[in-house]
């Protein structure tokens, strides 16, 4: 099998058995990036030379028999994680020349475990978007194609570059961040697995902030086991993040293959929403049957405030964004546009530095936090957020995990959705509620729809019970036997 088609688990065994070297494995990926990235635009910055050097070191470590979990494994890093000495842009013009002098905790953890970074993946600007079309470095193309149609599809967002890179074989796995669905929705659109851990499971230190009460880093890979391997490295307590939770990191891989006999799987009635495509409804039903066959008990549950999740999100997230992005003032780092006065400099800098969606969200957030409107919007949204979380807490009194669709439709074409921001926001209707509640959730590809595009199902778990997500996700993955690969990928390009 081609090196760009292997799972992380198989590559790690292959490296240990000296079937191939880390240099060969990494070079297969950097070559694939050189061949396909001009089209897919999955990476903003590539680091082939540094990666090959790191691969040589990995081979030395392997020769000494001292390999760690990810030694020699080529990964893509969402360009929202600060990487020491490697440009980190957040896909924004305001950071187009920003070179962090420090490493984020999540990427430091992956480096500690031997991972080799092949580049920084594209995303929606500051992670604000659902189609990877707001990047200042251009849109990402989904490597999947509709049957008989070459139209460029979106990879989802905001971690669209990570999803496209993993699907196309330009990385074995990638980091993502998820604020309202930014790992799960692109994973579903690109036919890969994406896991958003419990809020507080992975450190936010060194991850460029969008909405701090929601942002959470997680793994994106081609199998559930690979996500478990990556999460094992990424997760853990960090003193430098005040919302990092100090609880033990279990052995995630051990959860895979665990018996699901008697596991109670909740099916929330409210996710049978208007706009849910027939093919995704059918995939959901199929998922229910598979889990029944695996010994699960299926239980109907209700999450009555589901429909308010998105509206709540579009108050809370812009409010936090307007506060977080106040730091981009053109003074200490980032691009500066001169002005005659300090305010003129701020205004010129922020107009030139931010794209339209980011400007819109900052302005929304500024408005909902402004004097006279705070109670009507922000405080109200925080109260509804309490009700959304309560729905989940009550459901988890009856069931162990929830099964829902990840997104209402498969990937759509670039430019196909209207220019109405609210229409674009609706892509996250099924992913946002778990984010608002801080629950862990994962998307698993389970089949292809009528037009040949991948469909994903979402599992939502109790706080810090990523293990049940992995066990259940693996059962879905095994039953689905999803081995489909996209039209545009490293192996096919040879």
């Amino acid at each position, binding site marked *: 099998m081609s090196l760009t088609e292997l799972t992380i688990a198989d590559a790690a065994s292959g490296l240990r058995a000296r079937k191939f070297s880390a240099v060969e494995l990494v070079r297969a990926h950097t070559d694939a990036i050189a061949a396909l990235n001009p089209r897919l635009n999955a990476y903003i910055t590539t680091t082939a030379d540094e990666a090959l050097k790191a691969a040589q070191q990995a081979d030395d470590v392997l020769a000494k028999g001292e390999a760690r979990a990810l030694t020699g494994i080529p990964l893509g890093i969402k360009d929202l994680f600060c990487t020491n000495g490697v440009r980190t842009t957040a896909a924004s013009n305001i950071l187009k020349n920003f070179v962090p002098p420090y490493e984020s905790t999540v990427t430091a953890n992956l480096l500690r475990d031997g991972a080799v970074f092949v580049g920084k993946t594209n995303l929606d600007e500051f992670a604000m978007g659902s189609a990877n079309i707001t990047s200042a470095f251009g849109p990402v193309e989904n490597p999947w194609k509709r049957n008989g149609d070459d139209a460029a599809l979106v990879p989802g967002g905001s971690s669209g570059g990570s999803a496209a890179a993993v699907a196309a074989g330009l990385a074995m796995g990638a980091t993502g961040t998820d604020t309202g669905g930014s790992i799960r929705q692109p994973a579903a659109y690109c036919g890969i697995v994406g896991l958003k851990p419990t809020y507080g499971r992975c450190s936010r230190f060194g991850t460029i902030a969008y909405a701090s009460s929601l942002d959470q880093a997680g793994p994106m890979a081609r199998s559930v086991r690979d996500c478990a391997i990556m999460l094992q490295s990424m997760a853990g307590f960090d003193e430098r993040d005040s919302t990092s939770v*100090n609880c033990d990191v279990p052995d995630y891989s051990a959860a895979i293959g665990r018996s699901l006999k008697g596991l109670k799987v909740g099916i929330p009635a409210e996710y049978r929403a208007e706009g849910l495509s027939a093919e995704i409804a059918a995939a959901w039903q199929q998922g229910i049957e598979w889990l029944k066959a695996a010994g699960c008990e299926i239980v109907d549950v209700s999450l009555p405030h589901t429909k308010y999740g998105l509206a709540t999100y579009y108050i809370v997230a812009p409010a936090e964004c307007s506060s977080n992005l106040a730091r981009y003032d053109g003074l200490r780092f980032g691009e500066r546009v001169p002005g005659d*006065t300090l305010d003129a400099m701020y205004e010129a800098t922020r107009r030139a530095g931010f794209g339209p969606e980011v400007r819109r969200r900052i302005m929304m957030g500024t408005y909902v936090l402004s004097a006279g409107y705070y109670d009507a919007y922000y405080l109200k949204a925080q109260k509804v957020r309490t009700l959304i979380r309560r729905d989940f807490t009550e459901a988890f009194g009856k069931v162990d995990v929830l099964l829902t669709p990840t997104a209402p439709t498969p990937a759509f074409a670039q430019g196909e959705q209207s220019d109405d921001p609210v229409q674009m926001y609706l892509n996250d209707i099924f992913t946002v509620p778990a984010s608002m509640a801080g629950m862990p959730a994962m998307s698993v590809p389970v089949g292809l729809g009528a037009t040949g595009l991948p469909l994903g199902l979402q599992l939502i778990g109790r*706080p810090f019970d990523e293990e049940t997500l992995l066990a259940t996700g693996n059962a879905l993955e095994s039953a689905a036997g999803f081995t489909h690969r996209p039209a545009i990928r490293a192996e096919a390009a040879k």
Partner: protein
Amino acid sequence: MSLDPATVRRIARLARIGIDESDVPALQGELNGILGWVEQLNEVDVEGVTPMVGTGHAALRTRPDVVTDGNCRDAVLSNAPDGVGPFYTVPKVVE
């Protein structure tokens, strides 16, 4: 609640985002579209509900009040858009 052009200009000013007069109608339409859509939250009865400010999994921690980092002036200044020696520069603020 509907934003008028003056409010759009005021929000932009508060957010320190420069806008042209020609940007106002489009921004007004988009922001009103979003605000109109979030009005649905008015249906929800939140009487007596405590606002959620975080997910509540992490308890706030304290630590000894000691220096844990520092002596990295050059790293701190390494991304300054403009500077003189070990200082940032800013436009004159005395007007």
